[in-house]
């Protein structure tokens, strides 16, 4: 598509807007505790919200070849369930968008990858839930429905090509 570059720029630019709106959703769905906000919500019967489930899917397509199954790291990519214990969300976003190099290790800049950036809040929610120990390994057994807002946001971000 000839407009791919501008689409990518749009993706990066519109990220903050998506981030803000989904965090609002997360806050309203999940009673925020006094000291922290959780980007995921997990019901008493283990049902995770759509965003967290989708984060699981997208993580295992775009991230797991380096960071291992379930965020647990590989023989060369760091364990993200550890990283997110100390790494704030802003820094997570910064590294995903711009990449990072540490000697022989190299994290790519994913800021133009729609398969990552259109779902970055979902991926963060999933990894944070893993890091907090709120969900275990493997595919979440039960998950909530995809909202119309989420479907619309996905369509806008991914485009039609």
């Amino acid at each position: 598509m000839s407009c791919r570059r501008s689409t990518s720029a749009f993706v990066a630019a519109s990220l903050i807007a998506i981030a803000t709106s989904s965090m609002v959703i997360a806050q309203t769905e999940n009673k925020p505790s006094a000291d922290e906000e959780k980007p995921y919500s997990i019901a008493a019967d283990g049902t995770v919200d759509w965003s967290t489930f989708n984060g699981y899917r997208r993580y295992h397509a775009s991230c797991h070849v380096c960071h291992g199954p379930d965020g647990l790291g590989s023989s060369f990519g760091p364990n993200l369930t550890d990283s997110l214990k100390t790494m704030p969300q802003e820094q997570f976003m910064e590294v995903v968008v711009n990449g990072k190099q540490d000697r022989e290790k190299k994290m790519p800049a994913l800021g133009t990858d729609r398969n990552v950036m259109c779902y970055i809040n979902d991926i963060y929610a999933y990894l944070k839930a893993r890091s907090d120990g709120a969900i275990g390994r493997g595919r979440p057994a039960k998950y909530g429905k995809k909202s119309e807002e989420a479907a619309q946001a996905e369509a806008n971000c991914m485009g039609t090509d």
Partner: protein
Amino acid sequence: MPRQLCVSVSACALAVALTSQPAVVFANDDLMKLAKDPNQWVMPAGDYANTRYSALEQINKTNVKNLQVAWTFSTGVLRGHEGGPLVIGDMMYVHAPFPNTVFALDLKNGGQIVWKYEPKQDPNVIPVMCCDTVNRGVAYGEGKIFLHQADTTLVALDAKTGKVEWSVKDGDPSAGETGTSAPLVVKGKVLIGNSGGEFGVRGKVTAYDIKTGKPAWVGWSMGPDSDTLMDPQKTTALGKPVGKDSGTATWQGDQWKIGGGTTWGWISYDPELNLVYYGTGNPSTWNPVQRPGDNKWSMTIFARDADTGMAKWVYQMTPHDEWDYDGVNEMILANQKIGGQDRKLLVHFDRNGFGYTLDRATGELLVAEKFDPAVNWATKVDLKTGLPERVKKYSTEASGQDVNTKGICPAALGSKDQQPAAFSPKTGLFYVPTNHVCMDYEPFKVAYTAGQPYVGATLSMFPPEGKTNLGNFIAWDATTGKIKWSIPEPFSVWSGALATAGGVVFYGTLEGYLKAVDADTGKELYRFKTPSGIIGNVNTFTHGGKQYVAVLSGIGGWAGIGMAAGLTGETEGLGAVGAYKALSQYTQLGGALTVFALPN
């Protein structure tokens, strides 16, 4: 990157004809002579037929139990070490993953380093390498060592000094194209394949002139006939002409341009038929719903003329892939009897779990049977049509996007990946390192961005129901398609095998064991735990009249991704998670060569 180096097939053929010189033929004869000498190991698979067989018999069934470590060598690189060393005369050539260091070691002087070559490569290539920064080894020919770097550069080094003689860029890493495969020198040309099927890279094999590094021909996996080097009438698939532009006819629109079918496995060569053989990888993306059609010629065995690159025959094993069953595994050329008749065979153990036996002159399909009984995505392969008979329950296409298809065997890793098998003409058996892993697979929509992953599916892997072993090392009869014996292994066997005239077969394990087993029975005769998990290929040679066995350790590769943390998914549901301990509890990173010999 030059998209098309020859404007037409006939122009290609003409260029080849003009550059063919007697000296080139001589070089090939020289390499064939060297490959016949069991005292050396002059090409990645030991010989052009990719048998990984050695006529050496000093180490045999009786004395292999006395094997000892003769010497070791650290590569100084931590990531996954695939492939294995070459031995030419008194020199051993050892390679490493990124940064793709090459060492020439003097066997006369206890492996002293004669020269070391370390290319300067843009580290941006690292993250566009799916599945670790592996490299499957160097090739030798006409006094030169050929290295296919991660950044796709093919470089010719003076074998004596390590000095660069020429270098050529094969592809564009910024679009996700990388180099991992070992080159093969054939008739004055160096052949290499490309990597990057997870980035929408279009596969090709390129033949470079051994003296100048100039491309002689490029055979693409898909595209118009001028790209695929196919003749609509003369190129056949199961005996029938492929027809015009078969490399675009089964694709929707321009999808073939980002169609995958990369060629990162092994290449073999039959000097009598003058054909080179290799397989092509998965079509991009992993979401089958997004790319309708058979997606030819991904997942295909290619037989090409070594001089012109023209395709003689093709056979697509998994049309319209729905599981990432790349067809890149090695093609082993053996001459065996089928139904009382001597046949020139090509034997291939595919990721899809079927062991294929074909007539390598014509591409006729003779045998196609499961080499792991767990395989369930297809019931059988029809030998007439060549088509697998798919089971709807395991079809990710039939289930559709955003649906999790469960319990598919094998997993995307395949029943076997690139780790090459061996063939012993003495026993008539093939020795095959295999994976015994199943998966759930959920495809979903992806967008293509050049240089970014183009995957479109999520999957989780686990052992077949009721099983605790993730791998097997098997002996296979390719004339009947039957397993002769099978050794269960706790983890996938990700190491290339070696068969010897001494009646001993060698392979490595992910925990780091080098194992020697009886070629007739599979009985274990020897094991030694090397410094790290083995995903390298075992070889053998002699020096000073003494037989040695060598293997690279260095856990990583796809095995390092999937196994480092241990498998999960359904195993948790089965309450068996404790049975599949993480590989990281057995071994850690570190590239090292271990050389074995009998005591003096």
